[in-house]
């Protein structure tokens, strides 16, 4: 008797999105900003309107000397933010980056 077992696992997107932000956080702490940005892009697929993630992204772009990308991320952060402090921070950064 011959028994063949085939396991097909699909839809493992859970691991993709929830782990991505943890990986981004770890990469940021290690100073690996480019890698952190890659993980943030994955995590944003399931949380497109999170202003805190846009803040992370913007700060990373600034650290990587990418002011244009940072400016766009801060604008999205401001658009989605309902927190006064976060909105204020986004405005300060947009103002500063617009001067460059």
């Amino acid at each position, binding site marked *: *008797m*011959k*028994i*063949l*077992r*085939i*396991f*097909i*696992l*699909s*839809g*493992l*997107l*859970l691991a993709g*999105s*929830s782990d991505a*932000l*943890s990986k*981004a*956080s770890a990469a*940021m*702490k290690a100073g690996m*900003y480019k890698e952190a940005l890659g993980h943030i892009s994955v*995590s944003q697929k*399931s*949380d497109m309107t*999170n202003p*805190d*993630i846009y*803040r*992370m992204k913007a*700060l*990373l772009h*600034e*650290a990587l000397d990418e002011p244009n990308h940072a*400016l*766009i991320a801060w*604008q999205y952060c*401001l*658009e989605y933010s309902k927190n006064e402090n976060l909105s204020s*921070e986004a*405005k*300060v*950064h*947009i*103002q*500063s980056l*617009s*001067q460059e």
Partner: protein
Amino acid sequence: MIKPFISISIIFLFASCWNGPAVNESYDFTTVSYIKIIPVNDHAYISGSGEMVETSLSHSFLKYGFNVNELSSAFPTITLGHGGKTLELFCIITEFTDSEIIIVPYRYEDHGSTTTTVNQSASADADTDNAKTSSSTTTKTDGGAISSGSKVNYTSARVGIMLKMIDADSEALVWSNSYWYSSLELHRAMEICVRNGVNQMRKLFQ
């Protein structure tokens, strides 16, 4: 096409809300010859922060094309024109945070998973001509959750300063403003914070 329009609208929307400096309107800035940078005191929690900000001020003035003199016996001085007046630039460090922990709450969609198991068996007896085969398939589907939440953290730095300029002769306060900036790195937060201040000051002398 819409994105640039939204971006420009946002910039103009808050540009009007931007905290501008306090300026003595009657003061003639074209008569200023020198700006003396007064030594900056350390922030209460970080020693050396005063010197860092002071150096950053000189650096920013130089970067914007000003003539900066740093004599060992005197305060760093910016030379401007021939009006004869001297302004004293005071800087107070209002915030100097090396690592502030930022919590990022987020949600993610659990799409679940599907597992398919296929069992196959085959048998052939010696005294029969036909071989028997059978197979069965089992599929288990985990629907997952509609949304789940979690949080991560990282650290960022924040620097805040207050700048003011006083006329050395009359001791009148002629200009003041406050600035702050955040960044993943302390030196960047400090540099941009100071640069934004100097950028606004230089417009007085153009």
